[in-house]
């Protein structure tokens, strides 16, 4: 339910026919995040770890004098962390005036989806809940599936709505 309502409000904001999504790989899946949230993409740079913070918060980076936190999307989704390599990128997104960097395995490109091409995610099994609760819709293009992310959920600590989601699943 919350995913669907999320999608509705999402679509209301954007009244153009097609919305563009920045897609990136993480583990074996392709995710998309609306480009209206994306500030820029930078290569990996020196990260200062912050002690005693959540495991997915990798640390702070210095983006031209601005200090922004970076999170590892893999760890956020409960997947095994991967050694960073030269394909590893940081997508800098700005959501509700919070600027944050997302560490992803690699960038794919930009795709456009019309509203009709996006379907809400199917009811999910508990196992996949970790990553699926951030997904508000699924876009299909040329037989490929892109999981479209709601950055609000991604950056906000969503542990408290976990129970809520579970109840819905049981129903």
């Amino acid at each position, binding site marked *: 339910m919350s995913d669907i309502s999320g999608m509705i409000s999402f679509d209301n904001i954007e009244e153009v026919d097609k919305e563009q999504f920045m897609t990136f790989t993480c583990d074996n899946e392709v995710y998309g995040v609306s480009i209206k949230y994306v500030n820029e993409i930078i290569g990996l740079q*020196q990260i*200062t*770890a*912050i*002690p*005693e*913070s*959540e495991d997915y*918060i990798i*640390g*702070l*980076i*210095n983006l031209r*004098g601005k*200090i*922004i*936190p970076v999170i590892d999307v893999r760890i956020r989704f409960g997947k095994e962390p991967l050694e960073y390599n030269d394909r590893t990128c940081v997508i800098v997104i700005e959501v509700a005036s*919070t*600027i*944050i960097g997302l560490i992803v395995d690699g960038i794919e490109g930009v795709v456009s989806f019309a509203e009709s091409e996006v379907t809400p995610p199917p009811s999910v099994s508990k196992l996949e809940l970790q990553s699926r609760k951030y997904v508000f819709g699924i876009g299909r293009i040329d037989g490929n599936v892109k999981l479209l992310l709601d950055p609000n959920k991604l*950056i906000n600590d969503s542990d408290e709505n976990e129970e809520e989601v579970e109840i819905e699943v049981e129903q």
Partner: protein
Amino acid sequence: MADDMITEGMLDMFIFETEQGLENLENICLDSKDVGEFDEDNVNEIFRIMHTIKGASAVMMYQNIATLSHKLEDVFYFIRENHPESVPHAELVDDVLEVSDFITSELEKIKDGLESDGDSSELISTLDVFLKKIQKKTGSATQPAAPVEERPLQEKPRFYIAPVASDASKFYNIYITYLKDTEMANIRAYMAVNSLKGIAEDIMFSPSDIISNPDSANVVLEFGFKIALQTTEDAQRIMELINSSAGIENVEINECTSDDFLEFCVEAETPSSSAGEVLMAPIEQPTIRVESQKPQNIVLDSEEEKRSEEKSEGETEEKKPALARAAKRPAAKKGEAQSFISVNIKKMDLLMDLIGELVIAEAVVLQNPDLKVPGLDLTNFQKSAAQLSKITSELQDAIMAMRMMPLKNTFQKMNRIVYDTSKKLGKDIELEVIGEDTEVDKNIIEHISDPLMHLIRNSVDHGIESNEKRAQIGKIEKGKIVLEAKNEGGQVWISVSDNGKGLNKEEILEKAKSNGLLGNRSEKDFTDKEIYNFITLPGFSTKKQVTEYSGRGVGMDVVVKNIQGVGGVLDIESTEGRGSTMTMKIPLTLAIIDGIIFSVGGTNFVTPTNTVSEFIRIDKEKLIVEPDGEEYVMIRDDCYPLIRLNKFYHLKDAVDDIEDGIVVVLNHEDRKLAVFADKLVGEQEIVVKPIPSYIKQVKGISGCTQLGDGSISLILDTGGLVMV
């Protein structure tokens, strides 16, 4: 509303000026509350303030404010003119403060972009009752309270009729100059006109677009304001009326013939002032359309001639040919630099940030690894670098000085709080303010206002006993709170002392015990300071009764948190029965500080240089390990608790052997703490930045900063470590 003609700038000015007026008003009231009456200067000043507010708010079409200030003006007009014998002063002060509160709350609405919809009629009727009362007392109720009252604020538009000289009427040329720092001179000029129109048979003024064109304020300042008046009154009466508005530097009133008067009309019809249509406009009706103005930079030939004599006066003048004639008058001094400008605080913050970046960039350049190539001759580089460092540090000092503000305004607010709170609680309390000119960074001022307010309320509410109690225990002196600020070694100390009952140690200990805060230490072990510090813990209140002001136990912890937020500490001293003193010790500035960098397991930490008392390498035998794992180090016979940062923050790859690393001894208030780190990295000026709010607070870390190599380092907060 008249949104078309009221521009942003005018609104800002209106708000700014009205706020200043109200502030003055409050101060006068509070200063005089002990004297028991307003002296003549005070009455005049309040009258002037209300007059200004009335005029400005009427122009801005805030009728509720205008009518209210009009009524208060009436009251003070009566007091000024009739000197009534017995004015119930306390009542009057309360009324004035209520008016001030009302206008302040309306201003808040206006600032938030809302309609000013407050209803002032209740206050007005209160004032009416008050006015009637004092009129009756002086037996002068039959006299009209004030001439202004006879003339309702909203008159019907009056149309311009060509001057016809009656026998009794005289003609005057009036020339008003305003002080150079006067805000909204155009509105003031309008008010002068406004005050004259009561006696005027005919009136004209130049520049005539003072209401519709905010730029005319500059013209009025530069060239003065000119009025032609036809009236039966004499010059003295005119002078009186004009002088009731503030900011006037000089008024010249010359009687003239009707011909001169007519000439003025023609002169005013030059394109520099507004079109003739504006002249014809009813002066009471401020809605002159902006469209009626002609472009200001057209200069007529005849004007050009006059102007050629003044060529040297520069280009800016070319754009403002308004009243070229008046420019010749000696009264309009030009080239006199204004001593103050007001700058948007955002621009200051931006400048501050940029200078912060500059300081970092300087470090990046001067510590660049490329310079470390062996065999480079850097003599010239070093010379230039030294010069650069000098300039940047001067630049920093300059911006710091710019941001320094006296604590005066903050302290004055406290005056009001003491007044209100003590009145409600029925306590007789006097506030003494010392060192209100002490300057502190603007950012810090913003952060200490709330805690200070809280401390003051605490003193009024808990500290000082009720009048009966004082009499009972034989305290003859009046309840007194002293608010003091002073500079003390790179810090500002702001203290609130009262001569009340002081803190009761037993009561605090009792409460701490029942809250389970004492641990396994015996009560006698606690120093006074430790006991007092209990009151700063959340939810800790020994007050049995919750009042409107305090006693809920949320407060002191917030105060302490706020003070710590700006890197300060709260110091509590108390003598039971004699009163207590709470001192906020706050750094002068937050933004750029000297720091010492050390690393632990690959992570860099910075600590402000002034918190470091020494670095020392110690031998194994100086390390004392308690059975529960707590460690202490002995340095010159003193024993300090040791925190190993690697264990504290679970950092990997750090030095474990106490002899291989280094011990940094940190001060926090009067406590010392040893921190074990791998190695020292260096010293640098650091620009404090907050940790992004996305990351939850980490204990012992107060912020972060960028180092010379562009990497980020965490700022260690000694206070936070000590608390652990």
